[in-house]
C-alpha cells in the first residue's frame, strides 16, 4: 500500500466533508446495529447481511462520486445505500417489506437500491453485478458521458467467472468503471486463504492489463484518496481500476451467524481497527471534531434511525395483488 500524507488527504477533502464522512459511517453503524436487534427480536421479515466494520469502504468510495455516477452493490447493501444517499426511511421500509420501501416491498434486504439516486437495486448473485457495471460504463463511453460506474463486491466474488469476464471486457473497451473489491477476508464462512493462492486480489488486475491498487479499507480518508485517483483516471478516459480494500466484517455473514469460523485473536485484532474509532481519532487530533460534537452526532443519528424504524413500522403493507404489478412495461402478467 502506498503511503499517503493523511494531513494532506484530509485538507483536500475539506473539514466539513471529512466530518460528514464520519457522520455517515456512524449512521451506517447505528442503522445496522438497530436492524440486527429488530431482526433477532423477530420484528423484521426476511434476512439480513450486515456491514458492521466495513463502513469506511462504502463511505470512502461513495464520497468521491457525483450524482450522475452509478454504483452496484451486493447481498450486503445497506452500507452502500446509506453512503450513496438513499434515505434511511426508504431502506428501512423496504426491509419491512412495506409499500413505501425503495423497491415497493418487491426487492427486500438483498435488493436495496434506487437508480434515480445512483444505485442499481443490489444484485444478490455473488459476482453478478460486475458485468452489469461494465455495461453501464460501456454506455457512458458510447455516449461520451463523463460518468463513472462502480461495482462493489467481495473477496469471494473475485473467484466467479463473471469477475474474469467483466474485468477483461472492461479493460479491452477501456470503460470508466471502478471495480471495488471489499476484501473482508471471508466468503461466508470460508477464509480467503483457503480459496486463493495469491495474497492480493488487486494483483489480478495485471492479468487484464488493468490498473490495480491496494488500500487500507479501515481508513475512510485513505479509501477516499485512492478512490479519487481511480475515479479521476476513469472520468478522463484512462480506463478502469481494480481497487482492493482490505477490511473486515465485525459481525456474522448473515442472520444469526455467530461467526465461529473466525478466531478470537482475529476478531480482536481487527476490532482495534474499527473504522469509526480510527476516523474519530484522526479528526479529534486535527481539531475537526470534539467530544461534544461526537456526542451530538451520535444522538442525532440515534433519532434518525428511530424515525426510520417508526416509518418502516407504520408504513402500509403492499396489497397482495401488487405481486402482479411492475413486471412488464406494456403488458399485464399473463395468468
Amino acid at each position, binding site marked *: 500500500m502506498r503511503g499517503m500524507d493523511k494531513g494532506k488527504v484530509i485538507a483536500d477533502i475539506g473539514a466539513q466533508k471529512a466530518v460528514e464522512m464520519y457522520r455517515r459511517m456512524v449512521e451506517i453503524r447505528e442503522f445496522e446495529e438497530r436492524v440486527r436487534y429488530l431482526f433477532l427480536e423477530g420484528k423484521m421479515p426476511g434476512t439480513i447481511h450486515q456491514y458492521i466494520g466495513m463502513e469506511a469502504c462504502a463511505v470512502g468510495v461513495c464520497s468521491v462520486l457525483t450524482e450522475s455516477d*452509478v454504483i452496484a452493490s451486493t447481498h450486503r447493501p445497506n452500507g452502500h445505500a446509506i453512503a450513496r444517499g438513499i434515505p434511511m426511511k426508504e431502506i428501512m421500509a423496504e426491509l419491512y417489506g412495506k409499500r413505501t*420501501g*425503495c*423497491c*415497493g*416491498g*418487491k*426487492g427486500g434486504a438483498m*435488493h436495496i*437500491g*434506487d*437508480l*434515480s439516486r445512483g444505485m*442499481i*437495486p443490489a*444484485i444478490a*448473485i455473488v459476482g*453478478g453485478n*460486475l*458485468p*452489469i*457495471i*461494465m*455495461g*453501464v*460504463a*460501456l*454506455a*457512458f463511453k*458510447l455516449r461520451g458521458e463523463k460518468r463513472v*460506474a462502480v461495482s462493489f463486491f467481495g473477496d469471494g466474488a473475485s473467484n466467479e*467467472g*463473471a469477475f474474469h*469476464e*467483466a474485468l*477483461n*471486457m472492461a479493460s*479491452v*473497451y477501456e470503460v470508466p468503471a471502478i471495480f471495488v473489491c471489499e476484501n473482508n477476508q471471508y466468503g461466508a464462512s470460508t477464509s480467503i486463504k483457503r480459496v486463493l493462492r495469491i495474497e492480493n486480489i488487486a494483483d489480478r488486475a495485471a492479468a487484464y492489463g488493468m490498473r490495480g491498487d491496494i488500500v487500507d479499507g479501515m481508513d475512510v480518508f485513505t479509501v477516499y484518496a485512492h478512490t479519487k485517483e481511480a475515479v479521476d483516471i476513469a472520468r478522463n478516459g484512462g480506463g478502469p481500476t481494480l481497487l482492493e480494500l482490505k477490511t473486515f466484517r465485525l459481525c456474522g455473514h448473515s442472520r444469526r451467524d455467530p461467526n465461529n469460523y473466525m478466531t478470537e485473536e482475529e476478531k480482536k485484532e481487527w476490532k482495534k481497527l474499527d473504522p469509526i474509532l480510527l476516523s474519530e481519532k484522526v479528526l479529534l487530533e486535527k481539531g475537526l471534531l470534539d467530544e461534544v460534537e461526537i456526542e451530538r452526532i451520535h444522538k442525532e443519528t440515534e433519532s434518525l434511525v428511530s424515525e426510520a424504524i417508526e416509518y418502516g413500522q407504520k408504513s402500509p403493507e403492499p396489497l397482495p395483488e401488487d405481486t402482479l*404489478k*411492475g*413486471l*412488464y*412495461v*406494456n*403488458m399485464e*402478467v*399473463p395468468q
Partner: protein
Amino acid sequence: MKMGIAEALRKAIHDEMARDERVFCIGEDIGIPGGYGGAFTVTLGLEKDFRERVIDTPISEIGIFGAACGAALMGMRPIADVQYGDFLLCCMDQVVNQIAKLRYMSGGKLTMPVVMRAPVGVTGRGAQHAQCLEPFFLPCPGIKIVAPATAYDACGLLRAAVRDDDPVLIFEHKLLYGSKGPRAESGTLDASSDIPDEDYIVPIGKGILRREGSDVTLVAGLLMMHFSLMAARMLEEEGISCEVIDPRTLWPLDLGLILDSVMKTGRLVTVEESPKQGGIGAEIACRVAERIPDYLLAPVTRIAAPNTPAPFAPVMEKYYVPQPERIRDVVKTLVEES
C-alpha cells in the same frame, strides 16, 4: 423485395440502428472486417455503417449479456447475441437472475429494453450446438419469447423487440436463415418472404394461421412449422384437412388463436424439436385441456424429439428431429382413430 431470414434480420437491425442511436449490437464475431457477420451472417457488413455500435466481444457470454443489461439500465437498447443458442446456458444468471428480474425487484422503476438473439436447431454439429432452448425460458417471467419462422416475421418481430421496453428473447432457426456463401447451411429450407420497403412490425403476442383446415389443428414453430405444412400437403391427398398455427410468440402465447382452432377441429397436435417433458407442447396442451376439454375428440398429441441429447450421425439426426413423414403418420393415425 424477396429476402431470406438472415437478410431480413440484417435489414431490420440496420433500420433500427439508423432510426434510433441508442440501439447497438454486441456479440462474438459480429462486426469483424472481413469476417462472417456473426455465425450465420446476420450482421454482415453492419459495422461499415455503424462501427462504434457493432461491438465485437471476447468469448464471454456472461460479459455480453451483463453488458447488455447494464447498458439497457442506462437507456441504451442493446441487441445481444449468442453464436449458438446452447451458449445461453453459459450466461443464464445474467439472463434469468438479472435481465428478467431487475425491473420487478426494483418495484417497477427500472426498464430493461434488451433484445437477445439465439440460433437454435439440429444441424450435424453434435449435441452442444443443437438444442432448441425455448422451454428453458417459459418459466422465466419477465422475458418475452419469440420464434419467427419466416423472413417477414423475423424482420417484423426484430423491430417489435427492439421497440419493446421489456426484454425479448428471439429464437432463430439455423436451417431457416437462408445465409449465402461460405456460411450457407446444408439442409436449409426456403423461409424467404417479400419484405416491404416501408416500416412495419409484427406484434409480439400474436400467432398466425398458416393453413386453414377442419380435421386437426397443428401448432408448430420455426422449422417444425415448415415441416408441418409439408405434412399437411401430404395429408390433404389422403383426405385429411389440417389447420396449421404458427405461434410466432411463445410467451405471451396467443392462446385465443389456438382455442378457436381446436374448437373447430376438435384435435390438437403440437410439434417441437425439443423433448416432450416441460416443452412448449406440454404448455399448450395443458392450457387447451384446461379451457376446452369438451371440444377435444381425442387427447392432445405431442410430436417431439426423443429424450436424448441430439445425436450426430445423419441417420440418427433424422430419427431425432420430427420429419414431415413422421408428422403425417402421427396425424393420420390420430384422425383415423378418433
